[in-house]
């Protein structure tokens, strides 16, 4: 029988089907972080349960750590230290590898895992973090879970899961200059709604996906959860193997050959049937930007703020609320809308390729007067690489703050934030109410769009800065 990539990954990890219709799925790797992992580990310990295979569990300090150069356990977030210390103590007593605050490999979990070669094609990997779907870009079965499920995975090396349906989203056509994976996924969510992928595991395929480099594929899969999908996955290919080869946790020698032979089978069979198929033509795709408080509130950067009852809008009341929250009027062009701050970072867009495209626009230019602009590399290795390439000097000369790694102001945990009702253009993944700070007004966009907007001090089409 012809199988989809997701079917193959699922079957590979199926321990047994339960009588109640759920499947017992074997978990190869577990990631934790200090925000939700600390509670999972402490709760497990309180129940007197042990970690099944601690050597296959990893932990990152990323969510609430400060990103200032001289950071320590004392965080800007009032009780952040409690989370950091609890996580460290539990990780040590459980024998879990920890990428701690001062470790040169420290960074955002979904940046660190591929960077270290921990996530590999064909693997199952979970983390109590919704953006774990990012790692599906490696051809892995990777998805976000809650804390109780994390305890379950830690104690039993399995999870009881309802098998999702399968969807293929084929991105066809060639991306124009200035258009990236971020624009692809925002456009998809705008077209089919923030719940469009609900109940499905989504395979991203098509010529435009094949052409993306691995980091861009991670950006695409990262926002599968904003589409409410169970996860996103991309079939591994030569780019995947090239990316993985030589990384610290990647297999070597004969083991590599053995693994690679298996990895090459991880693709949907030509006549595999999906429960749903979507096709997105990318050839006319423009840079995208959000105007509202859900990722589905996305338009092309050349568009105006849409009316709440615009064709295809299903959440009129939500759109009216969003307009009021964002302080916007229907019909106002997004281009030219003044911003207070610009943010480049998060598990969506903080990898070296993201920093390179932003730096290419910022080179030799200055951000608008009075604007606050911050760049937070996704890991300390990304930061080191960027510094080796001189990108840090481009960012700082342009007026950006250059930070140490962490989730930073992707979300506001009571510490650092952009300020009351500040308007921010951001490479992050969520424009929810007060996500980035008290009543902060977030506009999601790609790194190049954020860089271009930072220079002008208003939402700006990045193509104005790109040579044809």
């Amino acid at each position, binding site marked *: 029988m012809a199988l989809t990539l997701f079917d193959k990954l699922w079957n590979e990890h199926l321990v047994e089907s339960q009588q109640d219709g759920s499947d017992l799925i074997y978990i190869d790797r577990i990631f934790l972080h200090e*925000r939700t992992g600390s509670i999972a580990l402490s709760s497990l310990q309180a129940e007197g349960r042990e970690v099944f295979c601690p050597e296959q569990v990893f932990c990152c300090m990323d969510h609430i750590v400060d990103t200032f150069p001289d950071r320590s356990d004392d965080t800007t977030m009032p009780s952040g230290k409690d989370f950091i210390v609890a996580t460290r103590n539990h990780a040590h007593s459980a024998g879990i590898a920890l990428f701690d605050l001062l470790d040169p490999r420290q960074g955002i979990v979904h940046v660190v895992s591929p960077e270290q070669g921990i996530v590999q094609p064909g693997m199952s990997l979970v983390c*109590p973090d919704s953006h774990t779907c990012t790692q599906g870009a490696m051809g892995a079965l990777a998805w976000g879970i809650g804390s109780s499920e994390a305890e379950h995975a830690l104690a039993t090396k399995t999870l009881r899961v309802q098998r999702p349906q399968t969807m293929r989203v084929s991105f066809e056509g060639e991306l124009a200059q200035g258009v990236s994976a971020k624009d692809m996924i925002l456009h998809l969510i705008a077209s089919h*709604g923030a719940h469009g992928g609900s*109940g499905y595991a989504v395979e991203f395929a098509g010529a435009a996906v094949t052409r993306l480099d691995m980091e861009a594929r991670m950006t695409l899969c990262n926002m599968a959860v904003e589409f409410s999908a169970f996860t996103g996955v991309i079939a591994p290919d030569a780019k995947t193997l090239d990316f993985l080869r030589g990384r610290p946790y990647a297999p070597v020698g004969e083991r590599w050959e*053995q693994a690679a032979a298996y990895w090459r089978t991880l693709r949907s069979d030509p006549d595999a049937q999906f429960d749903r198929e979507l096709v997105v033509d990318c050839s006319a795709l423009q840079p995208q930007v959000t105007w509202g408080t859900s990722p589905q509130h996305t338009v092309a950067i050349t568009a105006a703020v849409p009316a709440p009852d615009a064709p295809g809008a299903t959440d009129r009341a939500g759109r009216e609320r969003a307009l009021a929250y964002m302080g916007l009027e229907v019909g106002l062009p997004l281009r030219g809308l003044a911003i207070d701050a610009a943010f480049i970072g998060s598990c969506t867009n903080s990898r070296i390729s993201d920093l390179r495209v932003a730096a290419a626009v910022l080179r030799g230019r200055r951000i608008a007067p009075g604007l606050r602009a911050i760049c937070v590399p996704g890991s300390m290795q990304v930061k080191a690489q960027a510094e080796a390439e001189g990108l840090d000097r481009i960012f700082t000369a342009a007026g950006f703050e250059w930070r140490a790694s962490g989730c930073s102001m992707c979300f506001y945990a009571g510490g650092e934030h952009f300020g009351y009702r500040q308007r921010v253009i951001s490479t992050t993944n*969520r424009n929810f*109410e*007060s996500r980035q700070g008290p009543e902060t007004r977030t506009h999601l966009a790609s790194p190049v769009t954020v860089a271009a907007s930072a220079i002008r001090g208003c939402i700006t089409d990045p193509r104005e800065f790109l040579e044809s």
Partner: protein
Amino acid sequence: MDEFVRHEGIAAPLLRDNIDTDAIIPSREMRRVSKHGLGEGLFAGWRYLSQEGREPNPDFVLNRPAYRGASILLGGANFGCGSSREHAVWALKEYGIRAIVAPGFGTIFAGNCVRNGLLPLVLPGEVIAAIAAWVRAAPGENRVLIDLQAQRLEAAGQAFYFDIDAGARRMLLQGLDAIALTLTRGEVIDRFHRRRQELRPWLY
């Protein structure tokens, strides 16, 4: 874990689509490494007049006297989307919410509900809108009854039948500890684990 078998209570309509877990419990309200002490932060951004204070916003549904003691939420599409934080469910539970009725749920959120004895109940949006209209007429008297055994919700003098996957239903009805349940399959898991070490040795 707490069981959910049958529950009758005041239902509060909050019919917004895409209510995310940041709205249910803002990250700034997750102050301790604990599953407790979160009820006060529930819907903090909407429930209080300012982010610094605790003065109730009189317009927010849960603050209206008629909905005092509400134990059921009527929600919009994609309820609980966004962050995986189980704190959203812990906050709802601590506040006293036992069931949420919505046209759909964020996947991780729905799983978190089931693991904490909170019922995520799916009904079509137009049915929920009709129930909400009936509830609004007299919130204290027009109570909603949910019978999970029968997969039936009673409101507005009608019975609405709902689907729920068998695994979630069993977990809720019996208040099962999923980990304990899975540990009874330890032998099968061990066998799979050993076989996988032979089949995919590079993973070990």
